[in-house]
């Protein structure tokens, strides 16, 4: 079922590992930094779901674009975003991706085609559909990827967008991260189905289930979907079965989940998963993994340092950017 790891070269395997650890540690550190008072806003940690973002983004090309969610740091890092500018944004500083105007919920990197985290559950889905329309209009081979959660699949925007995308055979991959909860509500209290992939049939669209805790399986399924999209075969709904290790947001203790359930999923930790696999691979030694981890620690320390050193915005900057182009100030 999963992409045989032998097919991937060592560098690519290590890169998948690096990205996943980067996300994990970025989020853990963000949590500490928030507790220490450096980050003023909401945080929705991606911890536990790293394989979804990393596997999917490994299937993408430079011409592809992404829309994301409130839980967007992982998607952004998997796409290659700069932790320095991400922390700077979380710190609400001038060097942040959004010049301190957006914060975690709205972060973008236009150069990477990362069209934004989104504070509205389901809000990114229509935007990805429109982005795919534009990619097709321009004759690009690019695809649009929309990440969203199980909870989002009960929003009208999900339905309308999947219908439109399939009708027009747009190059989109709809990646649903089914982590079994929408906020504090378990899936069986928010929808009467278990396999969300099943909803694809309403749109005559392929619906695939992937192991969201296995980066190679994610890579396999999304590579297939991307191929279909690029060749005019239209969109795919990919359901990644996964779990968030932490609460819904920083501060939520996740008490609505049983200890057994958490434990069971902790044992399926996507990073441990990959580590074990990699270490069984004769080409890769523990030491290399340690090295990756060390590098990441350095990188993140530097990133936090960068954020802290970045200047605070000037209050009057609040009036800029309401409108694009030359007329940036809010008219009064």
């Amino acid at each position, binding site marked *: 079922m999963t992409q045989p790891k032998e097919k991937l070269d060592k560098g690519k395997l290590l890169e998948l590992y690096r990205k996943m650890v980067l996300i994990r540690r970025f989020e853990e550190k963000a949590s500490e930094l928030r507790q220490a008072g450096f980050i003023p806003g909401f945080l929705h940690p991606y911890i536990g779901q790293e394989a979804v973002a990393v596997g999917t983004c490994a299937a993408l090309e430079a011409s592809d674009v992404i829309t994301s969610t409130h839980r967007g740091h992982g998607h952004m890092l998997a796409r290659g975003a700069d932790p320095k500018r991400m922390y700077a944004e979380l710190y609400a500083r001038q060097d942040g991706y959004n010049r301190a105007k957006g914060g975690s919920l709205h972060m973008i990197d236009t150069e990477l085609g990362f*069209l934004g985290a989104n504070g509205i559950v389901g809000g990114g889905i229509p935007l990805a559909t429109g982005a795919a329309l534009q990619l097709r209009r321009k004759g690009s081979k690019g695809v649009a990827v929309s990440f969203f959660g199980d909870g989002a699949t009960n929003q009208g925007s999900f339905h309308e967008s999947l219908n439109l995308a399939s009708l027009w055979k747009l190059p989109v991959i709809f990646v649903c991260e089914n982590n079994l909860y929408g906020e504090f509500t378990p899936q069986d209290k928010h929808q009467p189905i278990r396999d969300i992939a099943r909803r694809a049939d309403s749109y005559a669209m392929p619906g695939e289930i992937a192991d969201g805790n296995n980066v190679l399986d994610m890579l396999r399924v999304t590579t297939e979907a991307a191929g279909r999209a690029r060749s005019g075969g239209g969109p795919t709904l990919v359901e990644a079965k996964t779990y968030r290790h932490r609460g819904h947001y920083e501060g939520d203790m996740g008490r609505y989940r049983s200890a057994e359930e958490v434990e069971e999923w902790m044992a399926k930790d996507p990073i441990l998963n990959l580590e074990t696999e990699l270490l069984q691979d004769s080409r890769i030694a523990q030491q290399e993994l340690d090295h990756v981890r060390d590098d990441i620690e350095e990188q993140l320390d530097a990133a936090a340092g960068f954020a802290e050193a970045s200047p605070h915005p000037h209050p009057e900057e609040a009036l800029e950017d309401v409108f694009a182009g030359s007329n940036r100030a809010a*008219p009064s």
Partner: protein
Amino acid sequence: MTTMTYAQAIREGLDEAMTADNEVFLIGEDIGEAGGVFGVTKGLWGKYEDRVFDTPISEEALVGAAAGAALLGGRPVAEIMFSDFSTLAMDMLVNQAAKTSYMTGGRLSCPITVRMVTGTAGATAAQHSQSLEAWFTHTPGLKCVAPSTPADAKALIKTAIEDPDPVLFFEHKMLYNLKGEVPGELDDLPLGKGKVVRSGSDVTIVSYLKTLHEAVKAAENLESDGISAEVFDPRSLVPFDREGLGASLERTGRLVIAHEAPTTNGFGAEIAAIASESFWGLLKGPLVRVCGRDTPVPYAPELEGFVLPDAQRITESVHQMMKQEVATKA
């Protein structure tokens, strides 16, 4: 100069914008082969088949698709068949398109144009008659345009499409058949430039869309009663031509505001607030709003007529304003 209807003028504006820029495309319900319920886009599908998209009845997805395309450089023009249905696309309009530039620190923009088919068309009742512009003038990041004549409609739809920001373009259904002169070579018309439609010295009537024409009729009535009314059409509500309003009040010292939307918190409230904050010294007495009554739009023509402002109500209000002033002075 050619004589054409308001609907034709919008169509020509769209046509010219599509010819000028390949990024311009149209998206909406039954706007393609059918040419739109009000015929505004008739013929464009034949001319630009791959740039006119008929969508399912999915207002959120269609505005979202426009917004998503705009993030990547498209210049979509979305039609909301009846602006009442924008209720279903509010998230895309307000939380996504309007805030894109700001939330991203200016790093991304969302240049969509949304054609909002506005106002009653006669017995169209509560869910097909609304004038919702004030929701959007209250939404930072959106620009709002409301042309009242064919010439303005043609010029402003082009300006709206070229504008780098999301623009809501309010078209009044009852104006679609209104004829007017449109110059062959139209000058660019920037947003935020109002127009004195009729000069006067006693009172300024600010109005737009269908009600503007009622205001002009009122001014004609008033003239025969010896009152000289100036009629000011802001043409765009955001940005709003404060200078133009101020200059008019300087000439007249009195203000009447008229629009079809309900009175409470309509755009007239904003005009009133601007006047009483910034042009207080110019005003000789209380201003007056002659706007839609605070009811949904009723079905029966008699009721609808009672609810909406017309030339007669505007005329009477001006008379009353002048009378009261005399009474106060006495």
